[in-house]
């Protein structure tokens, strides 16, 4: 490896940080209802939408109403997307004449896209009509992102407000997320993508005759528009089966850069929104710095393991043992693992390389990224939520150790906050262990494996980590299309989503009613290096304690065996 290969690793965080600060401040203004750059353009459409919805933008909601609106909206989304897939055969924009999607795949997909997971138990170009892709999947790419941002904003308000019972209005937050944030950004991203060769057409597939005279059917479609929101909304559900490794989704290094930047951008900006709305920007920085620190550590480790190469390959004559299996030449090793780290750190799940074929320790890091609860930037909204849950946990311990009943940013942390934070942090983790252990010990689970031995364990583990963490990427060798997997992963996705958002809203509701304790010399400053280090340690330790045994058995043993020259 040459040192210049590492330049992207340095450039990305710098560009990301600068853009995230601007976007974070902008989002704070948007959700505070203040005037922004785009207000002159977007205010009247916004008001128009409120009129249609019958929403008064000053109507505040309690946490229960807010949660109820969230739940109802998600249920409608799941039902609508399910029906759309079942009925796509009778509907327009279906040039390939694709039939109805099988019910369990349709259900799995509906839940998957509504929960911002975008786990795909199907092959996009062979299953979904253009109408389903646009009116179903693209729509949910927007909505699932927006309903992820809204509760995060409500949680921020819970911290920022005092002695009130309300958290804002769900419909207003949703509307603003879409028209002020997601649509403008996707417009930019779509056009950049198209300019680089990402297709955007309603034409049916193309029949080509190759240079060697063979028939090649080339799938196309309205890809760029979906690609933009897929990345920006940390959705990750590709138009094509190969996702961002497909040349039509990610044709050039520029699109690759924009894809990585896009999936990190909003989750990275939200801590700054947090700081701005709290009027405590240093706090936003501290959360961001913790996330960035975890991110960089992960990047370092994964580059280390992947660049090392595969000794088994080297032995049989592959130059340097370079592990190019499941990677594209235009991305190479570094940009593939940078993408992999970014997509698992956030809950995006788009991939530009096949994670199943990564080295075992790289896979271990990816599983870890997801399994700790998607807090390294995480999903749009949910990343900040989960990180704040960890912060609550951290400050509980830290508070005790300095001899005060625990508090975080001036809010006292009591039993209720502890219960909810623990639900947010542990329920996806525990569910993934339980479901994996069921899959690993039943024929229904084992029959889907593409690889044997420890790697098979990793495949199953990754599947449930990805769904419970609402990530959506996969060790693609696992056949997720069986009834067993469609149903169990559906459960994981639902639990992953709702056990994050609803407790977060409950915390927000409780915190909002509390006073804000002023900071003094006896309160622990949550903006300093010590806090960042402690938060990062808590995240790593909780993850390590939960997953040490199973990660040892899966990726770690595989690693040891590869380096001992053993294959399966």
């Amino acid at each position, binding site marked *: 490896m040459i040192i210049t290969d590492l330049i992207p690793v340095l450039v990305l965080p710098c560009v990301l940080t600068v853009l995230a600060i601007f976007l974070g401040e902008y989002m704070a203004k948007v959700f505070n209802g203040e005037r922004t750059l785009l207000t002159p353009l977007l205010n009247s459409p916004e008001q128009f939408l409120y009129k249609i919805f019958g929403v008064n933008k000053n109507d505040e909601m309690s946490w229960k109403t807010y949660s109820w609106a969230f739940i109802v909206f998600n249920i409608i989304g799941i039902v609508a997307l399910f029906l759309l897939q079942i009925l796509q055969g009778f509907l327009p924009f279906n040039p390939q004449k694709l039939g109805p999607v099988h019910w369990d795949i349709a259900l799995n997909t509906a839940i998957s896209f509504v929960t911002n997971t975008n786990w795909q138990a199907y092959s996009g170009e062979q299953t979904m009509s253009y109408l389903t892709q646009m009116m179903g999947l693209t729509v949910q790419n927007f909505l699932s992102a927006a309903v992820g941002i809204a509760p995060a904003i409500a949680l921020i308000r819970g911290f920022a407000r*005092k002695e009130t019972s309300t958290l804002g209005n769900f419909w207003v937050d949703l509307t603003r997320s879409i028209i002020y944030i997601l649509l403008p950004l996707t417009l930019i991203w779509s056009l950049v993508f198209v300019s680089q060769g990402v297709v955007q057409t309603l034409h049916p597939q193309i029949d080509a005759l190759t240079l060697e005279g063979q028939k090649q059917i080339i799938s196309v479609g309205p890809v760029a528009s979906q690609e933009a929101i897929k990345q920006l909304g940390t959705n990750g559900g590709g138009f094509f089966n190969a996702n961002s490794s497909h040349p039509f989704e990610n044709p050039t290094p520029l699109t690759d850069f924009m894809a990585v930047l896009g999936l990190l951008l909003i989750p990275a900006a939200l801590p700054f929104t947090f700081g701005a709305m709290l009027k405590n920007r240093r706090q936003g920085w501290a959360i961001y710095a913790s996330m960035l620190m975890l991110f960089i550590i992960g990047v370092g480790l994964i580059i280390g393991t992947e660049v090392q190469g595969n000794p088994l390959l080297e032995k049989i004559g592959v130059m340097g043992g370079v592990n190019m299996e499941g990677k594209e030449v235009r991305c190479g090793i570094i940009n593939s693992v940078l993408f992999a780290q970014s997509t698992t750190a956030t809950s995006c799940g788009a991939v530009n390389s096949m994670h199943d074929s990564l080295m075992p320790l790289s896979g271990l890091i990816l599983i870890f990224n997801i399994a700790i609860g998607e807090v390294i930037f995480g999903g749009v909204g949910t990343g900040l939520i989960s990180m704040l849950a960890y912060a609550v946990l951290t400050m*509980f*311990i*830290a*508070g*005790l*150790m*300095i*001899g*005060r*009943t*625990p508090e975080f940013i*001036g809010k006292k*942390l*009591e*039993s209720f*906050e*502890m*219960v909810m934070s*623990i639900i947010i942090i*542990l329920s996806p*983790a*525990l569910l993934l*262990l*339980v479901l*994996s*252990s*069921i899959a*690993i*010990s039943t024929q229904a689970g*084992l029959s889907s494996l593409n690889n044997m031995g*420890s790697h*098979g*364990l990793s495949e199953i583990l990754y599947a449930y980590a990805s769904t419970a963490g609402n990530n959506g990427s996969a060790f693609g060798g696992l056949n997720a299309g069986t009834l067993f997997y469609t149903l169990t992963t559906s459960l994981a996705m639902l639990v992953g989503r709702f056990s994050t958002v609803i407790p977060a809203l409950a915390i927000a509701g409780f915190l909002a009613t509390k*006073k*804000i*304790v*002023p900071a*003094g*010399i*006896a*309160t*622990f*400053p949550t903006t*300093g290096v*010590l806090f960042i280090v*402690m938060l990062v340690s808590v995240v790593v*330790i909780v993850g*390590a*304690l*939960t997953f*040490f*045994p*199973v990660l*040892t*058995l899966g990726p*770690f*043993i595989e690693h*040891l065996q590869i380096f*001992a020259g053993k294959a399966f």
Partner: protein
Amino acid sequence: MKDSVIKLNPVSMMKNPVMGIVEIVTLITSLIVLGDLYSGKSFSYDGQITCWLWFTIIFANFAEALAEGQGRAQAESLKKNRSEAFAKKLHADGSSERIPALQLRKGDIVIVEDGDPVPGDGDVVEGAALIDESAITGESAPVIREAGGDRCGVTGGTRVLSGTIKVKITTNPGETFLDQMIAMVEGAKRQKTPNEKALNILLIGLTVTFIVVVITLKYFAGYMNVIVGISTLIALLVCLMPTTIGGLLPAIGIAGMDRLLRHNFIATSGRAVEAAGDVDVVLMDKTGTITLGNRVATDFLPADESDKKTLVNAALLSSLADETPEGRSIVILAKEQLGVRGRDIRAPEGAIFFPFSADKRMSGINWNGHKIMKGSSAAIHDFVISNNGRVSEKIQKITADVSREGSTPLLVAEDDKVLGVIRLKDVLKEGIKGRISQLGQMGIKSVMITGDNPLTAATIAAEAGIDDFVAEAKPDIKLDLIRKYQSKGHLVAMIGDGTNDAPALAQADVAVAMNAGTQAAREAANIVDLDSNPTKLLDIVEIGKQILITRGSLTTFSVANDVAKYFAIIPAIFVTQYPNLSVLNIMNLSSANSAVLSAVIFNAIIIPMLIPLALRGVRYKPATASTLLRRNLLIYGLGGLVVPFAGIKLIDLIISSLGLV
């Protein structure tokens, strides 16, 4: 030790969920051992693990029993005097009857005479008496308690030295402060404090996590062709569970209450003690808390520098009839300056005294036709003018200077002439300055409340290092002040004794009432200071903080320990099937069985080893939060990471050399 076995009753164990679960899984391993016995298999490994698991539980119970025992002993010794006492209950018709103190009910009135013990907590409704409170407070100097006013409270167990008082009993037996305190140290009746509940939730969360981890591990291992024995899984589970903190948690809370008792505090709720750790504003009365309570003469400032002796003499004579503390302090100072000692001074023959009265605000003497008077500036002014004299400009200047410096000027006059000025100064209590600066270091803002004028108040505040003061305060200002601070999110502590302090005490987050104070004050408060020493608030804050720090530190320690235990047990389980995994056996433990057993033994014996720490509490020194945290993280976090590696290795060496595995 007996208690720790009695506590094994599963019903009572489930009050502490962590240890309750340990007991359940230990019962399972016990059954396995019985099964081994029955089938004649070797039970050495299972048996030893089971044995140590039982020890884990017993050690935890022992910690709790030890703390309870200490607390109970402390409380019982306070209570002893009273239970044997008899009371003379006064009937409505005026007759009295001798009944055991335990039969007294709220509202009963008893007569207590010379030498009688006070039969219960109550208020003096009639009379005054000198009372020996040493049994409760350890303070040998007797105190006066009298009807009316703020010094009417008496406590059961104290003894009347002289005087006869009628006491209205204010609590039923079993409901006295002491009884409440005893209830708080007895595990069975103990209510968990809010913070304990929250911490318990965290511990339950961890426990559930590890249960899931261990159960699922069985299936993952099965897929990898490794069959893990139930005993080993249970050993792993117990090692991972936060048994160290789970076992010591009740003891920490009880020991905290013990420490309070030992400092002669009685807390009526655990919440108050925890809140004490958070207090960031303290309201203090100036008088009695910051200053000695009385102003003291410190200087004589004559009008004519050459005639200081005349002034001192005049001051002495005019103050002989002043029985107020100020008056006596003038006499003492004057004697000192004149070089006379003891009681050599006698009133001159034929002198007529004018004793000090609050409305005249003067005292003096009429001797040989001369009137020598001493009093407030205004009073002497009038007096001199009434004698056709005038106050010289020099005197006016001195008076003004003294006032400006925050002291109180008293003028001494002979007939028409003002001889000079006496400077009266508030004197700080000994050590108060240090204590207030300690409060500052803890991040606690001190606020002084005084009826003095702002100038005087400012002087005292500056001298004592007080952060803020409220001068010319009326009694009801305390309540408003507390509300004001609370609305800004502060936690306010207040010390009070008077009946008019009761509303403010009820409002304060931590309300400390002096034991000598009125019943109203004591009922409104959540902590009663038996010593009636207001500066001891610092101790309460420290104890509160210590309890929390000990909990946090041991939690951190407990969780950090898991890392080493994983490194001991996981390679041990899988190394036979996957020899490569021996790279994880970084402690180089001798065998798989020995590794598991060593981890279990370490997990068990760390509990008794930490009992002294749990009972004593982690040392607390005022410092910034970051410093404290860094220090505790280093000791208990990093220590928790490192210690078990060494400990498990050591145990492994011992048991393998003993041939136990």
